């Protein structure tokens, strides 16, 4: 029997052939932790007598969830993390550099075939670069950086085939919400998702990162895409050329296979309070909104800001809407400045936050009022997610969010494109 991409990646790391269901300890290529999870990693490390951080050079620490710091407590946490990174020689991206799941690919930390953990669930994002990347907890992270290995169950895989041209007004976020609705929020629990189909070739790396970010919302352990020409060219732009793409064998075994025709898709919206409560825009348009959020590790990238700026340029947002913008990284923000996107967004009435997670997790920078509907480009719409249990969160593409800002109600972006 042939192997899936996941089985091949685990096999290459333990240097023997393994199969889905095997439980093993394996070395890793990269570990990522951030200011939300690392305090717990430090606590877990205290349980290891005389910890040495053998693998500190593989550890990347990122301050992104609570930036700029909203409290003395957070400032202390930030100082602790910086001191730790300095002491052990870890790579550090400090406040204002951006969201972890943007920075790790953007700064060239990922290669095809890598086995990566992050103490954050949306670590699945890096699978867009043909790596196996998964979210773990803080004890896992402590074990990985001290012992240099971690236990895993090699997952079964499911295959999601995306076919057809991407219609106008439809983006990677809409494609993601569409397959999440079908697979459901727990349909891929503990499984790896392998993506295939001709639609992938029509997606930019940014769109692919969005999809592999959102795949987490099916419960998936990882979401992996092939390393095609688009991927190779993107890596080459970061000076990474010596890559070995991992492809599945033609007779690899999949637990389930799904096929989606993207060519007839319309914009999608996830309605409160589950990410798999997905409806086509035609069923939810007209819903009043009072807040909009453009940003996050899902949709805070350059092409996301570009489409929002295209829709809002030269117009004013509805007076009843508060629009908060948080670019996914400093580089994204600078390029968005150079290209005039930030100017267009701010002139239209948007408020600009520093790069970071902020409002997505209710940490800072935009907490909705009671009874308010929010339309957001984030990946989760759980009760209380943005810091107020009495708010309702709708998830959509940057284009849908921007169009909705103009009208004050959930709006089909195709009316403005």
């Amino acid at each position, binding site marked *: 029997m042939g192997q899936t991409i996941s089985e091949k990646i685990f096999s290459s790391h*333990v240097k023997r052939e393994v199969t889905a269901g095997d*439980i093993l*300890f*394996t*070395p890793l290529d990269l570990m990522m932790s951030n200011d*939300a*999870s690392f*305090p*717990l990693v430090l*606590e*877990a490390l205290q*349980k*290891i*007598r005389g910890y040495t951080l053998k693998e500190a050079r593989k550890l990347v620490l990122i301050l992104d969830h*609570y930036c700029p710091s*909203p*409290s003395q*407590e*957070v400032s202390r946490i930030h100082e602790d993390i910086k001191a730790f990174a300095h002491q052990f020689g870890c790579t550090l991206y400090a406040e204002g550099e951006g969201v972890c799941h943007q920075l790790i690919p953007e700064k060239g930390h990922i290669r095809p075939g890598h086995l990566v953990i*992050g*103490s*954050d*669930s949306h*670590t699945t994002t890096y699978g867009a670069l043909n790596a196996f990347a998964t*979210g*773990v*907890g*803080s*004890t*896992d992270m*402590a*074990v990985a950086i001290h*012992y*240099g*290995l971690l*236990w895993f*169950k090699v997952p079964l895989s499911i295959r999601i085939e995306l076919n057809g041209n991407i219609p106008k007004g439809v983006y990677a976020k809409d494609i993601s919400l569409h397959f999440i609705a079908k697979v459901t*929020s*727990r349909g891929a*629990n*503990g499984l790896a998702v392998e993506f295939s189909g001709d639609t992938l070739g029509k997606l930019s790396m940014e769109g692919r990162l969005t999809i592999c970010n959102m795949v987490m919302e099916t*419960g998936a*352990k990882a979401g992996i895409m092939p390393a095609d020409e688009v991927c190779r060219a993107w890596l080459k732009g970061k000076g990474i050329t010596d890559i070995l793409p991992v492809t599945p064998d033609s007779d690899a075994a999949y637990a389930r296979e799904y096929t989606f025709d993207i060519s007839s898709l319309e914009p999608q919206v996830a309605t409160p309070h*589950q990410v798999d409560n997905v409806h086509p825009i035609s069923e939810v348009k007209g819903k009043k909104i009072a807040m909009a959020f453009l940003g996050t590790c899902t949709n805070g990238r350059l092409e996301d800001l570009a489409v929002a700026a295209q829709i809002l340029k030269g117009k004013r947002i509805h007076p009843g809407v508060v629009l908060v913008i948080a670019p996914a990284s400093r580089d994204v923000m600078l390029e968005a400045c150079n290209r005039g996107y930030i100017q267009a967004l701010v002139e239209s009435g948007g408020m600009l936050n520093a790069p970071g997670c902020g409002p997505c*997790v*209710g*940490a800072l920078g935009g907490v909705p009022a009671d009874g308010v509907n929010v339309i957001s480009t984030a990946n*989760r719409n*759980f*009760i*209380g*997610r943005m*810091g107020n*249990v009495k708010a309702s969160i709708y998830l959509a593409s940057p284009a849908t969010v921007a169009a909705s800002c103009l009208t004050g109600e959930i709006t089909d972006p195709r009316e403005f494109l």
Partner: protein
Amino acid sequence: MGIAHKFGDDINTDYIIASKRKRDTVDPKKLVRFLMEDIRPGFGGTVQPGDFLVAGENFGCGSAMEIAPMVVVGAGIQAVLAKSFARTFFRNAVNLGLLLVTCDTEQITGGDELALDLEQGLVRNLTRRVEIPFQPLPALMKKIVQAGGVIPFLESDEGRALLPLL
């Protein structure tokens, strides 16, 4: 023995402990009073050590942050019983030595008195006088839970034997 506290499907980690609460402290003892606050206000103040959390499908979905199972451990919960668990919650619980039982929880209602029989793989519902079987964990995971978590396991002789893999 302990009392069952029943919850539904898809109890995510933000419900177990809200993100805004873990911003300023990650001390489980301080966070226990906020356990499940967004979906059952006041719950954290009433739950007793030795009690059980009982839920439907996909318990612990959402964030991979270990604070969620840590607060459950901090509340003295004896075990979490659910029809299924989200993978990150599951592995965090194994790593912390928190007992998770995957079983049919339809036969348990809130307030029932439960006892676990790990030898026989049975949940005994003493209130309703029914026995619910469950599948034991795979061998390696069981060893980790029995050791009290993955760190104690790796510090044991059996765990150390795995380290030359590097």
